[in-house]
């Protein structure tokens, strides 16, 4: 009985903190329509500051007032003013990516400021010793604070939403901001207020939850801890505060009863307790009622030119040739790093087809890579020791398994809006990395004894397919590159087919597509399975290129980083997948490592180089936050620049080619290093279009669109002839040339 009571109280306390975090989430979602994936990161950042203030010798109460009264609201208001305000009317996918970028940026920033290798703890209020005895059970003051705070906050929010004017305005601001404006309210002010409040609640939850879950302060861990509150918010269907509160309590109690009553031997119970919120999130998604079909969410004029299969094939050949030439420059370690990057690029292609073509989201692409890796490890390895090889059947089986897992994960969420599919993948990714990738105990199933993840890591040998043996780095790199090119060509063909048109139609308007007779669930399911299969293939290749993989290779944060970089590079484009994947798999690693090496080599400059290394990470996240303004991605912009250059600035193009060739010769002869070449060549490739535009600006007159001709400029004869030509009028009568300046003055608007 005492056990029951003890765990019940612990469960209620945990539930109380969940409810605080979850209600903040519900609040911002209801006033701005943005599901804030960065909620946990905000909690984490505030809690780190709370720790920092105490380090500076501030008393607990002052630190608490500072983070809850100042930092929390300021952070929320700033987020709203700088980033979230601009997201009104953008697609769900954009909103999710932006908040994911905020999450990553905040985590990077925290790891920069507070070295993750150093241990930190946050203590309970009044210390661990301060407690009272209730019916034989000891309750700490801190736990009482949690309970009281949760009840007060839930009641306060209920009153705010239903009884006060500000609350009603808040509720209205997501439904119809224009109507609010007409009634003399300012929807932006309501939204900012809700962001400030939501952020404060996140920080409050962070400060409360760290002491009750062990006291250790860790950026990644704390961020994910608050994400558990997503499940509670889902209980309230992201709307109802009371139901969210109830959900949070169920979550907290369940987590503690698991600890109390399941056998504690092995890793199973501990893992189950950690992944329970995600399992519950998944179950809630399954039972949610179907959404109404919607029309187009946004009407952007996103220009999208799908490549023809032929041009994709040509570019694929160019890529293979280019990578081969580049690999000649690299050391063995360099080749391995690049091969790893290329396998990430293959995983990135899974996002191109899913998000770029079909408009759906997968927040855990690496998790499907992990599924495939586990299957390949158990069913595809032949031989042992150094002679061990992965066979093709094993890889194929792994790909099929990834596709099936994808189908199972997606199925319950497909009837719902895109956000819920994203949450289902998140739940799956978390579940997998906690339950499967940490599962080192032996199981028995149908008479077979096996261990899913022996020793916490898997040794995945190189692939051997007939005469092709990928034991050296170059063959592994080239195989990955060729596979990337082939899948890329396949995707180009897919996009141009009837299936591709159906995907585009579903992305643009689900309602209209359904009205043509399309079963949307079936279409989404098929594309999600294709995507998961590609991610699975990339995952197996990645594991095989790394040699040894552990849970660390497939983390949720890693998946989010990949997704963000691909979106930044251009999610709708195969080239975007290449650049984003390479950046995620090799780029940041290389840059950060280079800066770290430099820091080690030049001790005097160490601070500067470490700073640059951190800056690279934070900057990519900043670019991700700006994605709402440029949904096509930067590769697309660069490609457009080249298209312009081909039409009007060929000399610059040739010049750029020449510079590239010179750089390559310098690198081959060893004058400059391979990575230096890589970075220099990348810079040339990226900035060449700028040079081209400058060249064109020099060489040609600016063109005014016909309707603006003569408005802000002198109305000259040339302009007039041009206008005649544009309008298709006969240019027959050509008046005697007047002095252009004179005519200009006469016609210039006042």
């Amino acid at each position: 009985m005492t056990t029951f009571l003890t765990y019940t109280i612990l469960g209620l306390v945990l539930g109380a903190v969940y409810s605080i975090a979850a209600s903040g989430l519900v609040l911002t979602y209801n006033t701005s329509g943005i599901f804030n994936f960065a909620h946990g990161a905000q909690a984490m950042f505030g809690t780190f500051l709370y720790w920092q203030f105490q380090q500076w010798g501030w008393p607990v109460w002052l630190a608490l007032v500072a983070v809850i009264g100042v930092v929390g609201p300021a952070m929320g208001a700033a987020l709203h003013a700088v980033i979230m305000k601009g997201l009104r009317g953008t697609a769900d996918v954009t909103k999710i990516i932006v908040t994911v970028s905020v999450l990553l940026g905040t985590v990077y920033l925290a790891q920069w400021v507070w070295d993750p290798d150093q241990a930190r703890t946050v203590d309970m209020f009044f210390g661990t010793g301060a407690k009272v005895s209730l019916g034989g059970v000891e309750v700490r003051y801190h736990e009482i604070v949690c309970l009281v705070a949760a009840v007060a906050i839930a009641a306060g929010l209920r009153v705010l939403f239903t009884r006060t004017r500000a609350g009603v305005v808040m509720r209205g601001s997501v439904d119809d901001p224009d109507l609010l404006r007409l009634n003399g309210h300012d929807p932006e002010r309501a939204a900012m207020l809700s962001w400030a409040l939501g952020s404060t609640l996140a920080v409050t939850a962070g400060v409360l939850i760290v002491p009750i879950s062990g006291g250790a302060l860790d950026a990644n861990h704390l961020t994910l801890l608050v994400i558990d509150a997503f499940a509670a918010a889902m209980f309230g269907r992201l709307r109802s505060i009371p139901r969210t509160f109830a959900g949070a309590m169920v979550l907290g109690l369940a987590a503690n009863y698991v600890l109390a009553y399941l056998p504690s031997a092995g890793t199973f119970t501990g893992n189950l307790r950690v992944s329970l919120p995600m399992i519950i999130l998944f179950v809630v998604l399954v039972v949610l009622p179907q959404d109404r079909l919607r029309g187009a969410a946004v009407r952007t004029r996103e220009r999208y030119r799908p490549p023809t299969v032929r041009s994709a094939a040509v570019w694929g050949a160019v890529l293979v040739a280019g990578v081969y030439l580049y690999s000649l420059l690299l050391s063995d370690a360099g080749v391995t790093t690049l091969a790893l990057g290329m396998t990430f690029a293959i995983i990135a292609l899974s996002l191109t087809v899913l998000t770029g073509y079909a408009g759906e989201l997968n927040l855990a692409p690496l998790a499907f890579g992990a599924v495939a890796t586990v299957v390949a490890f158990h069913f595809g390895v032949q031989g042992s020791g150094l002679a061990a090889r992965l066979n093709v059947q094993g890889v194929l089986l792994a790909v099929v398994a990834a596709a099936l897992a994808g189908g199972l994960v997606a199925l319950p969420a497909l009837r719902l809006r895109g956000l819920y599919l994203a949450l289902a993948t998140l739940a799956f990714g978390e579940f997998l990395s906690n339950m499967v990738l940490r599962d080192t105990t032996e199981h028995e199933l149908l008479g077979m004894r096996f261990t899913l993840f022996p020793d916490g890591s898997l040794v995945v040998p190189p692939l051997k397919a007939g005469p092709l043996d990928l034991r050296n780095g170059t063959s592994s790199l080239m195989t990955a590159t060729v596979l990337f090119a082939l899948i890329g060509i396949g995707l180009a063909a897919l996009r141009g087919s009837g299936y591709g048109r159906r995907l585009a139609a579903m992305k643009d308007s689900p309602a209209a597509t359904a009205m043509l007779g399309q079963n949307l669930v079936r279409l989404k399911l098929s594309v999600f399975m294709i995507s998961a299969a590609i991610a699975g293939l990339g995952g197996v290749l990645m594991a095989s290129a790394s040699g040894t993989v552990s849970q660390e290779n497939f983390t949720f944060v890693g998946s989010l980083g990949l997704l963000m970089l691909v979106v930044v590079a251009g999610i709708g484009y195969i080239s975007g997948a290449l650049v984003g994947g390479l950046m995620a798999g090799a780029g940041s690693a290389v840059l950060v490592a280079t800066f770290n090496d430099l820091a080690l080599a030049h001790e005097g400059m160490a601070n500067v180089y470490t700073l640059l290394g951190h800056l690279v990470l934070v900057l990519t996240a900043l670019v991700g936050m700006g994605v709402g303004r440029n949904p096509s991605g930067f590769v697309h912009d660069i490609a457009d620049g080249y298209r312009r250059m081909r039409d009007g600035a060929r000399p610059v193009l040739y010049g750029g080619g020449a510079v590239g060739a010179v750089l390559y010769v310098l690198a081959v002869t060893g004058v400059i290093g391979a990575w230096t070449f890589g970075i220099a060549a990348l810079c040339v490739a990226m900035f060449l279009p700028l040079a081209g535009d400058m060249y064109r600006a020099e060489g040609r007159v600016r063109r005014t669109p016909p309707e603006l001709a003569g408005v802000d400029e002198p109305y000259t004869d040339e302009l007039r002839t041009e206008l005649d030509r544009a309008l298709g009028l006969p240019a027959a009568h050509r008046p005697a040339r007047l002095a252009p300046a004179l005519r200009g003055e006469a016609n210039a608007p006042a």
Partner: protein
Amino acid sequence: MPLLETRDITVRFGGNTAVDGVGLTMDEGQITGLIGPNGAGKTTMFNTITGLQKPASGQVLLDGADITGLSPAKRARRGMARTFQRLELFLSLSVRDNVRVAGDVLRKGSRKQLDEATDAVLERTGLTDIAGRDVSDVPIGRARVVEVARALMTSPRVLLLDEPASGQTERETEAFAEMLTGLAAEGLAICLVEHDLPLVMRLCSAIHVLDYGELIASGTPREIRESPKVIAAYIGTEEAAS
């Protein structure tokens, strides 16, 4: 027997009753008008008939079979097609692909047959000259015709048009009216929601009038024009207008 019939349809949004016990009929080869002031429930009726909106009560019958529980896609496969008041074109596709994709969904025939069918629909709707254009560049009047073309590509038996003439020039409307008459002559049941009353009066053989979610009149254009209820609610009188 009417091709499409609704019986006692009631739709509620929260506490608001948007449509209250409405029964409509549409016949093969006829153009039926559905008119009424803004907010009368016309688009809600369309959404209910096509399955985008679940009614609180009532039935939708197609060819005598109850289809109330069917999904929009299943209804479409039984021959229901519609256009949207707030355009729902596929903005990342060209005009031709907007029409073609309807063929891709139903896959009735080979690739070549679908190509030919697409060309035929484009020809019929007078869109051949802009077939290659990005649909986002097409002016609104013709964009509405693209929606009609896309709906026709599904070879429907019932075609629901939600304000197809708004945004069209007079000349476009003229060509459009001619096309509708032609389509009806081939046996299509067309339902027209439209504020251009002269157009409705001219094209329709039967007209239903909604007001505040209730059916206030059904009849021939002449009966509707003379119904005092309709005049009071929607058309207005000469005196009131002047």
